[in-house]
């Protein structure tokens, strides 16, 4: 006892106190953010005063405006449609790609991952600009099609829905592939063999054994993709037409042009609700901290 207490440093703070002391700067700014987000919920019931301010007077006006006008229903519909279409396509293309990665030799896989991560560290503005050059009316695809002999401007997708989806797919594909790949590699290789030995065909093995076991990865990918598309601003603004308005674009517009914080907050609340629905729908299948593992 005496020898061990010899080198023990003086105890001023217990481990718990030390933990919170070290955590306090981060927790402080995080709480600031948390409170700010919570305040959005309250602001969405405040009254907007033209001229740029808001009055602390309870009103449902922001929500009646939001749900009373066709245009805002259209905006919500667009936002969800972009998310659903992009997530679906990302899963359709991403799962096979993750499966292919698993079978590659380590060196080829490293090269594959390098390609896969390129969109993650390059600026969204630069990538979107690239898509403008490719898909534009006088863009690469149209020039090539014209030279083959399809006539001037045969492909008219920019600006428009599919231009946005293609560009969003580029960034969501890596985000879909990484968690699926992680859950594929954590599979016991014996499982696949056993299924085949027991008489299941390759397709049946995939459908009944492998796919269900990788569902946590799939759901993590789906949630991350969905949320990313839901909150995309740059891509729809540059590549979308005026018909393709989405929630983030309208929110930004309300802040910058009208400084209508109450209405922007109401729109933000709708966005949060949409996000929560998706996360809650898949919550049972994944652990939240697993979501960030990759």
């Amino acid at each position, binding site marked *: 006892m005496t020898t061990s207490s010899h*080198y023990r440093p003086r105890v001023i703070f217990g*481990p*718990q106190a030390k*933990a*919170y*002391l*070290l*955590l306090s*700067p*981060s*927790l402080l*700014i*995080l709480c600031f*953010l*948390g*409170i*700010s*987000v919570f*305040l*959005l919920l309250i602001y969405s019931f405040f009254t907007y005063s033209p001229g740029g301010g808001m009055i602390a007077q309870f009103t449902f006006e922001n929500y009646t405006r939001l749900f009373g006008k066709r245009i805002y229903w259209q905006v919500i519909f667009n936002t969800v449609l972009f998310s659903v279409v992009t997530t679906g396509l990302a899963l359709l*293309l991403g799962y*096979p*790609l993750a499966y*292919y990665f698993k*079978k590659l030799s380590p060196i080829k896989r490293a090269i594959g991952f390098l*390609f896969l991560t390129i*969109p993650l*560290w*390059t*600026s*969204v*503005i*630069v990538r979107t*600009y*690239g898509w403008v*050059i*490719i898909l534009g009316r*006088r863009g*690469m695809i149209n*020039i090539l099609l014209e*030279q083959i002999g399809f006539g001037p401007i045969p492909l008219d997708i920019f600006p428009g829905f599919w231009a946005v989806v293609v*560009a969003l797919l*580029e960034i969501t594909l890596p985000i879909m592939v990484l968690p699926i790949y992680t859950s594929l590699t954590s599979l016991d290789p014996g499982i*696949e063999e056993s299924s*085949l030995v027991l*008489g299941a065909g*390759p397709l049946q*093995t995939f459908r009944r054994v492998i796919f269900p076991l990788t569902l946590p990865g799939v759901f993590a990918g789906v949630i991350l993709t969905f949320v990313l598309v839901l909150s995309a*601003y*740059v891509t729809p603004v540059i590549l979308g037409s005026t018909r393709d308005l989405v929630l*983030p674009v309208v*929110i930004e517009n309300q*802040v910058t042009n009208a400084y209508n914080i109450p209405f922007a*907050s109401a729109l*933000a609340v709708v*966005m949060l609700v949409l*996000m929560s629905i998706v996360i809650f729908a898949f919550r049972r299948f994944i652990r939240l*901290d697993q*979501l*960030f593992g990759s």
Partner: protein
Amino acid sequence: MPKESVVPFTSQLSSHRLGRGLWVVFAFVMYAFLIFPIIIVIFMSFNSALYLSFPPAGLSLRWYERLFSDPIYTDASLKSLWVGCFAVLTATVFGTMAAYGLQRYRPKFFNLINVLMLSPLILPGILIGLALLYTLTTVGIGRSMVSVILGHTLYVLPFTVVIVSSALQGCDRRLEEVAMSLGANEWYAFRTVTLPIILPGVISGALFAFILSLDEFIITFLLGGVHVVTLPIRIFTSLRFAVDPTIAAVSTVFVFVTTLLFLLAVRLRARSQKVES
């Protein structure tokens, strides 16, 4: 039971030549899809013509010349660097402290705090920007450099916490205890034993955070307004007015810089994981 069904699906596919060829084609189409927008931007920046043409009009560095003679892009780059440096420095210090507190002292409510720490990852940038904008305006800071730096710090904090935590998990705690049994106090033991071991992890976390900060758009756009024009915002505004290949040149330089930072970060992270084993 037919004998060949014992062969696993994967090796069946790889032995099937047509199937294998299809997989390779599929993968290469995907790779091309992922990198094509960047390749075409780089291509545009070296093309002498104002508009895209096939075959290319000719090789030229005129857009780079214009880029470096035009102060708007250099000013924007400097703004980006300042914001990035301040935000990353703050986030790295705060994040390392938090990771140490979480990993070494295991506070009560560990899971709750962990989720709270990671929450900015799932919170869309537009909500972070909007929420902070009004609170900061109420406090009297409004749209300014300070607001942007705070926004960026919050945005990158989870990444530094995650990366430093994983470095700490790989660092044997007993080394620190040995140092303390030899008379070092906790701070001295951390500084001379633990920190050097986790340093590659900490730096790689800082580099990842720096890339994220450089690329960040919407938080800066909302919190900075016209006061803080970083590089992504400058490119965005130029894009909306005119398509000028100078944008391609600045984008190429931008991508080149982030690529270098990324490769450096990956290397350091690999090294810190080697130290662990």
